[in-house]
């Protein structure tokens, strides 16, 4: 069991699946960093995005790697609208209300999906879904390698956007000091909505990268969002590099605990880490100390 012939491929597999987790966690951590709320609708939005990618392929014949360019802007607009017209007004500026509103949105989205598409599990069958790359020690699945590279590109783009654009600066300003930003002339409601939109667009990208080798049903997002919460806690709330590195770590932990404890108990490792981080380093790897 401890031979490198198993351990190395298991670690590599973990890294690859971790990259997809990273995309989901990036959206979550971004929304937390600025709005200071945990977005409970994140998982439901992921399910919705997976359905969108599925039907883009089935009905329009769009390859998921192409539809990412279509779905990311659509989901940005959806996220923007959700925050600007529903979450913002409904919560009256109270963080606790926002939490409950996102929970309500999650329930509505999931049940709407269940009503429209039933509980069936659906998959798409693209030619490259089961292609592999031989790297000597093991074979890597092509869709996962693509996901890995894409996750890094998105993280890099997000970092550049946050560092060098006016909107990015405004987002950081609102995150640091909401009142000060407002006094400096920044439209806080708009920036909140832009951030929520960016987080939702990340979810859409994750969905397009996930669907070629995965399946979709109305509750599929839940499994991922629990992992994403753990990653955000591990990496530090609101930290982009933290989400990326935390996700890769969690991917490896999940893969190895699956290997050693069996598939039925594989997720135990993730939640052990969740508890340990909360006990030992509540601010996470890259989080600022409160």
């Amino acid at each position, binding site marked *: 069991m401890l031979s490198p012939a198993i351990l190395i*491929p*298991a670690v590599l*597999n973990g890294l690859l699946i971790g990259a997809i987790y990273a995309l989901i966690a990036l959206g979550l951590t971004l929304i937390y960093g600025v709005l200071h709320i945990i977005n409970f609708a994140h998982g439901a939005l992921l399910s919705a995005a997976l359905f969108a990618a599925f039907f883009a392929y089935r009905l329009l014949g769009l390859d998921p790697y192409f539809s990412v360019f279509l779905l990311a802007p659509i989901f940005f607009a959806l996220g923007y609208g959700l925050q600007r017209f529903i979450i913002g007004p409904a919560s009256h500026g109270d963080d606790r209300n926002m939490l409950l509103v996102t929970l309500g949105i999650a329930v509505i989205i999931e049940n709407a999906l269940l009503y429209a598409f039933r509980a069936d*599990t659906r998959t798409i069958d693209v030619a490259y879904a*089961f292609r592999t790359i031989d790297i000597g020690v093991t074979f890597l699945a092509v869709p996962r390698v693509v996901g890995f590279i894409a996750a890094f590109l998105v993280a890099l783009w997000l970092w550049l956007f946050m560092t060098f654009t006016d909107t990015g600066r405004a987002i950081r300003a609102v995150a640091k000091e909401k009142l000060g930003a407002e006094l400096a002339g920044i439209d806080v409601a708009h920036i909140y909505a832009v951030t929520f939109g960016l987080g939702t667009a990340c979810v859409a990208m994750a969905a397009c990268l996930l669907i070629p080798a*995965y399946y979709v049903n109305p509750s599929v997002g839940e499994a991922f969002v629990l992992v994403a919460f753990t990653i955000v806690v591990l990496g530090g709330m609101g930290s982009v590099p933290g989400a990326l590195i935390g996700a890769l770590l969690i991917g490896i932990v999940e893969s190895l605990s699956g290997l050693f404890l069996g598939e039925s108990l594989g997720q135990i490792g993730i939640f052990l880490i969740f508890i340990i981080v909360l006990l030992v380093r509540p601010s996470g790897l890259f989080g600022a100390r409160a």
Partner: protein
Amino acid sequence: MTTCSRVSRRQFLQSTATIATAVTVGLVGAPAIVRAQGTSVKLGVLHPVTGALSYSGQQGRLGATMAIEDINAAGGIKGLGKIDPVLGDAQSTPDGGTAEVEKMNSAGVCCIVGGYASNICLATTQAAARYELPYVVDVGVADGIVTRGLKNTFRFGPGFGVISKTALANLVAINDQAGKPAKTVMIVHEDTLFGSGLAKLLNAQLPQSGFEILETIPHPTPTRDFNNVVLKIKAQNPDLVIPANYYNEYVLLARTMQQQQVKPKGIYSVLGGAASSYKFVKEFPDAAQYIMDCNHWFDPRNEKALALKKKVEAKGEFYTYEVYMNYSCISLVADALARAGSADRAKLTEALASSTFSGHLMPYGPTKFVNGQNEGAAPVNTQVLDNDIKVVLPATFANAKPVFPRPA
């Protein structure tokens, strides 16, 4: 208010008239009323048509409804009229199945056919037993289904005990014939009643036949990634891999093995969800080639079975075991109803228990129910050869010879 009282008076008059008619012809009680209404007999058709088992469930429903259509087209059941199916969705869970049994009982069905998965059948048969409602299990192979002394429960197909015994005997026969190339085995099974039960039986029986079990790997249904499982198989390099799981996971496992280029001397499934599936063979021919399976299969010499195959394929569907097993079960119930001459539950139970039905599509011996289990039921061994599924054992039904070990 006036409308309400009018309707209820009308209903009262109707039922009085019905009872009066019944008494006049010398019959009293519920069955008489059913007969007085007289044009159809309600039959519950219960499958997991949504959720993780939805494909198998939908195939089962297809077989059952085709049988009902055929029976109705031929004039229905003598003396009882046409069959009126009450369709139910078990949603791939025992709870979902139980809820449907309650609904079907309220709807007044005379019998329920289906269930598909072992864990669903265990719950649904028990729920039906409370109402003394006859229940014919279509697939559910766990032996516990027919060993609890439930008088209402009948299983037309074979159970674990018979299947694993046959599978083992046939595995030894195939291995011996090839000069005993296989000595080590790994078992990959899903972790509910079906997979775990089978793994336990195999773990007890395989060593007695000289096989060494390297590892037994359980996994949940659904499982989203088989890379770890396949890595374990790759590291231990067994001669044989024995999977026991449902369709989605079976396909994912076989494809991941192909992807990671793991090629044991043979993949020998016992009730492999996909190994005896035309869908699997058509969609993933490379992954399916040479896979062997000990499973439910139709009698390739039976004209009726071949005619149904053509009909199912003409609909653009695959002829999977769920289809012909459900077709056979519905035919079995129809035969019992005709012999009972009544949709009364007790009479139907009696007729099912004494059934010697032979008009089915399966390669079984004479039908004889002992404690609800059809003693004539038996599985066969199949193998995927040249993009088709052939029967390789027993010799009486075979239309090809087994290819083992798998050519390099």
